[in-house]
């Protein structure tokens, strides 16, 4: 269970608002992954697509607060019809990273992304998810035919001159070990990526993953006396914007008590680490940043 309990928990201050996330595609996705921590799906409208206008309002406020970098996720960001103008507007004020499943990255979109990148002083980075060593592992999580299509998307980016960061969850057997990591880099080189980039993420036992794997144990929580390091926690330097307001982080947008307000200035206060997912971030030193 990821619901907050009645105990007291550590408070994490926002040291600085360096990283701003946008749930740009809401919880709407062209896949229904069984490990998704917010259960995104074609019919999940808990959080809606964000418009260019809405993103623009937050970008303007973010600039006054000195935000350093922007991340876009969903759902699947390339399902948002405004994603290209949104990225163009963002790249005028800072660097942007898009998290995608790669399925919609045809050569035309890859070329448009390259053009956006070339037109900006700031970095545009793409992160594409692979969940295993081949179709069997990946498609058990993501559905039939998705492995080949993701690899095609990765290759399209590479051929357009963009080198994506391939993101793998620890569901891929052994990938977290140094040997497993090296094997994964070999796999990526076999796709033609001569300079592969890789990020490995732990699983959060919430959303769909709670049913696929297991829920958190009762003891997997932080207590008031636990020593936390705000520099290692993403809630110490970031916030998440969705169609429903500003949340503490990308992981907890399904939880009303993780909503911190309507504007960024509403969200600058400390946050109480009362969720089990906070335990994962604390123990693993997780950041969703690249």
């Amino acid at each position, binding site marked *: 269970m990821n619901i907050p309990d009645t105990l007291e928990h550590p408070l994490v201050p926002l040291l600085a608002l360096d990283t701003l996330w946008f749930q740009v595609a809401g919880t709407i996705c062209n896949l229904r992954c069984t490990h998704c921590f917010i259960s995104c799906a074609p019919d999940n409208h808990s959080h809606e697509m964000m418009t260019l206008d809405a993103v623009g309002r937050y970008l303007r406020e973010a600039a006054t607060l000195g935000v350093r970098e922007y991340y876009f996720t969903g759902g699947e960001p390339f399902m948002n019809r405004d994603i290209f103008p949104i990225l163009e507007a963002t790249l005028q004020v800072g660097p942007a990273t898009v998290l995608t499943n790669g399925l919609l990255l045809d050569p035309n979109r890859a070329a448009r992304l390259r053009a956006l990148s070339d037109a900006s*002083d700031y970095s545009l980075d793409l992160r594409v998810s692979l969940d295993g060593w081949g179709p069997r592992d990946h498609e058990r999580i993501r559905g039939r035919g998705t492995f080949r299509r993701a690899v095609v998307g990765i290759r399209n980016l590479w051929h357009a001159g963009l080198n994506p960061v391939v993101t793998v969850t620890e569901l891929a057997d052994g990938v977290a070990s140094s040997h497993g990591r090296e094997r994964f880099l070999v796999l990526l080189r076999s796709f033609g990526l001569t300079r592969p980039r890789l990020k490995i993420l732990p699983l959060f036992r919430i959303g769909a993953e709670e049913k696929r794997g297991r829920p958190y144990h009762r003891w997997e929580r932080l207590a008031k006396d636990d020593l936390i390091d705000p520099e290692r926690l993403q809630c110490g330097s970031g916030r998440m914007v969705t169609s429903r307001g500003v949340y503490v982080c990308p992981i907890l947008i399904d939880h009303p008590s993780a909503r911190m307000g309507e504007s960024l200035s509403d969200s600058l206060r400390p946050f109480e680490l009362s969720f089990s997912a906070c335990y994962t971030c604390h123990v693993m030193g997780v950041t969703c940043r690249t």
Partner: protein
Amino acid sequence: MPERIAVFGGVYSNYLALEATCRDALSRGAESLYCLGDLGAFGPHPDRVFPILEKYRVRTIQGNYEESLSRRSRDCNCGYTDPRDNQFAQISFDYTAAKTSESSKDWMGTLPRELRLSFGGFQTLMAHGSPRKINEFLWYSTSPVPFLSRLLELHPADLLLVSHTGLHWHRRLPGNRHVVNVGAIGRPANDGRREVWYALLTSGTDLDVRFIPVEYDFKTLIHEMKEEKLPAEFIQTIRTGWWTTYLEILPAKERAAGRF
């Protein structure tokens, strides 16, 4: 009268490049020389750097290397995130820690973490990574204007000089304020050239920032790195000008500009 200073960082034990840089800066009329830290790492014979800093009266601040060595820490606190990068960082740190004298380590502990001065009317702040964190990476493509403006408000200055990344750049901010990453003189700037780079700043009505490439005796450096059994990957960088390690920390644009 305009003033002129030379500022560099990331010596990485490359005492040959340090000597060449100091000479070059003086020949161009620099009145003072500043070093923004990371004296060790990467290269051979770390103790050869200190007499040169003294000879040219280089005002030096602490980098993460000096902080770690003076505290007798077990690692460099470089801020890398990738396991392979961290492995190479550990090889460098273990070598440098073993070859640096105890008195040099003690001296590193006495260095300031930042310097403030008035330079040609610019309220100037020098720090290693950033004014808020010794090992923060300020890259050109991920240090946008609003972010840098906030740093200069929280750490009041019109001119901020940093290093740590190894790549040099200059960004102008509204209100005639400037941020300069002076780069590193210990290894090339991932540009396919063997020279290393430092910053020459001249004050006036406008601030003039020039990055100067410096040639040095890289063949001797390579010879000594081989003798000291330092990694072939490091030697390749000195010989080719392309980075072969610490690549995973690079943002997309900076990564794309290199060969690896």
